[in-house]
């Protein structure tokens, strides 16, 4: 007998449901698309370790029935680097937000990308600080409103997918919560890529971004994202004016190259007759 419940529920800690996300928040959708992406790979869920920073989006690992490290604001990639280098056999996945990854954690982001460490990073970009109540973030569009941009943001936003591609990541894609199939496919590719994979998900925070920007319901936000998304191939033929306010979706980088933990392993092999040390805290000295 198959349980009559969502096929994605089996990956979750049932005793913690329903999760804390507001009605219509994109975080829950990203969670399911991750599991669908994972099902497309031959990775064993038992071998997945999740790491996150602080923010609504960073709460995702707490609901997944796997090892998870919910760390400090912006620093998920630092912890994930230690976890992955410490045990390269783990499939380490990082969930982060636009504030977490691009503001307080921006330096860690570009350096993790530069090292091309084999992590799959899913960055939920809702263009706002959800958890702290709707302040603008480094990706908030010019002119959008937040509790700290009462007159509309005048700052230039980051283009995360481009930024991380330029920093050296070997797989980068951007999709939205309104493209769940393409998104899960990108996550699958990210998981399979032996290097730094960055999947930016443009998502809805109906509670803060929506309410502050004249989209009262989750559906209005959902529709807004859908209508403004434009495929990268089409976007390439359009000029700047036409692209104003558009969300360009698709693949931004796919160029596998030397990866950090492989390099460390090789260095150890060249210099020692011992295999790479794993879980050595449990071992007696010989």
């Amino acid at each position: 007998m198959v349980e009559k419940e969502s096929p994605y529920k089996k990956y979750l800690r049932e005793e913690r449901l329903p999760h804390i996300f507001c009605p219509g928040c994109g975080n829950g959708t990203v969670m399911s698309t991750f599991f669908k992406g994972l099902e497309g790979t031959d990775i064993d869920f038992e071998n997945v370790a999740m790491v996150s920073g602080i923010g609504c989006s960073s709460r995702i690992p707490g609901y997944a029935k796997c090892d998870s490290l919910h760390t400090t604001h912006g620093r998920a990639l630092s912890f994930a680097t230690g976890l992955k280098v410490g045990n390269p056999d783990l499939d380490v996945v990082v969930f982060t937000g636009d504030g977490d990854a691009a503001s307080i954690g921006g330096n860690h982001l570009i350096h993790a990308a530069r090292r091309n460490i084999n992590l799959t990073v899913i960055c939920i970009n809702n263009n706002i600080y959800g958890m702290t109540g709707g302040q603008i973030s480094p990706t908030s569009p010019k002119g959008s409103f937040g509790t700290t941009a009462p007159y509309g943001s005048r700052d230039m936003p980051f283009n995360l997918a481009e930024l991380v591609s330029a920093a050296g990541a070997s797989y980068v894609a951007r999709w939205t919560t309104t493209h769940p199939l393409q998104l899960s496919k990108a996550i699958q590719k990210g998981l399979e890529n032996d290097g730094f994979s960055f999947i930016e998900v443009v998502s809805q925070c109906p509670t803060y971004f929506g309410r502050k920007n004249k989209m009262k319901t989750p559906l209005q936000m959902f529709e807004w994202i859908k209508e403004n998304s434009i495929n990268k191939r089409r976007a390439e033929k359009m000029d700047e004016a036409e692209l104003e306010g558009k969300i360009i979706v698709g693949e931004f980088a796919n160029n596998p190259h030397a990866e950090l933990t492989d390099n460390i392993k090789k260095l150890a092999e060249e210099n020692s007759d011992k295999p790479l040390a794993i879980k050595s805290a449990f071992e007696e000295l010989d």
Partner: protein
Amino acid sequence: MVEERFVQGNEACALGAIAANCRFFAGYPITPSTEIAEQMSILLPKYGGSFVQMEDEIASAGAIIGASWSGMKAMTATSGPGISLMQENIGYGFITETPIVIINVQRGSPSTGQPTMSAQADMMQVRWGSHGDYEPIALAPSSVQEFFDFTIKAFNLAEEYRVPVTVLADEVVGHMREKLIIPDDIEIVTRKRPEKVDGQYLPFDAPCDGTTPMPAFGDGFNIHVTGLTHDERGYPDTNDPDTHTKLVERLCNKVLMHRKDICSVKKENCDDADIVIVSCGSPYRSVGAAMKKAREEGIKVGSLKIDTPWPFPEEEIAEIAKTASDIIVPEMNLGQIVHEVERAAHGEANVHLIGKIGGILHKPDEIYDKIKEING
């Protein structure tokens, strides 16, 4: 076989880490600690270990915590500005009960201060630097040999109590060269895995003054680790006063209630002493000569060296205060540990600070002069 070498303190620290089975290092260069990172980058590949130069100290502290949960003994090394940057993640180490070792080779401060000069500038930062209530463990070496020994001890204590442990060295011990004896029977504490249980496994279900065995990620326990206040399952429970009180009190008690096992002091000539010099770290190096000179003149001077400034050896100080009339505290700062000594002495002895900054260690005569002044 016992091995004898002549090495720099920072090198001895790296050798100690390797001896303790540390196989992961993440760090960011900073004087006067840099040689530790450099040594680890040379040594680790030879032992099948991993070295990563991170983008800053915040990342370094995060990386060693991540590595610890991967099942490795992990260490970083830094100095003043770097230790300031690490504080938030060190606090995360306390609440998540992650064994890590932080080497702090102290230098003249505040701010960038005196990069190449010695100080005991962070004695209190290690105690109170991260926000909130917690009980740290710290060891302060006064020689190259102790830098080696205490680094190993730091790993052992980190594993035993599941806490971040700091080695509070300073530029003097970090950069001096001395004889180092590497024994062949080094005692190492290995991490204990929890037993696989059927039904619900409670990763943070510990006695009120203790901790629990710690699995590695990938061991199949599906553990959730968070810096939020959490219950026995590891799940966030941030609004219940009882959950928070129970957790934080336990985190403190697991160190405080084992103070006797953790604290270490070295007493010399204390039994008949009227004046006791209480030192910690490098200033101890000048105590012996001052004490000898005073004793030769018939002044009854003793020495109590604190190996573990944290948890503070309160009882040992209280005991001294009962028999001695005066306590002298030479410190390479303007007064940090002296306040703890005063607190522990309960007014039973006069406590005198010899606070010295600028980067040069106390000369024996500076301590001797204080003895003479007190002796009248």
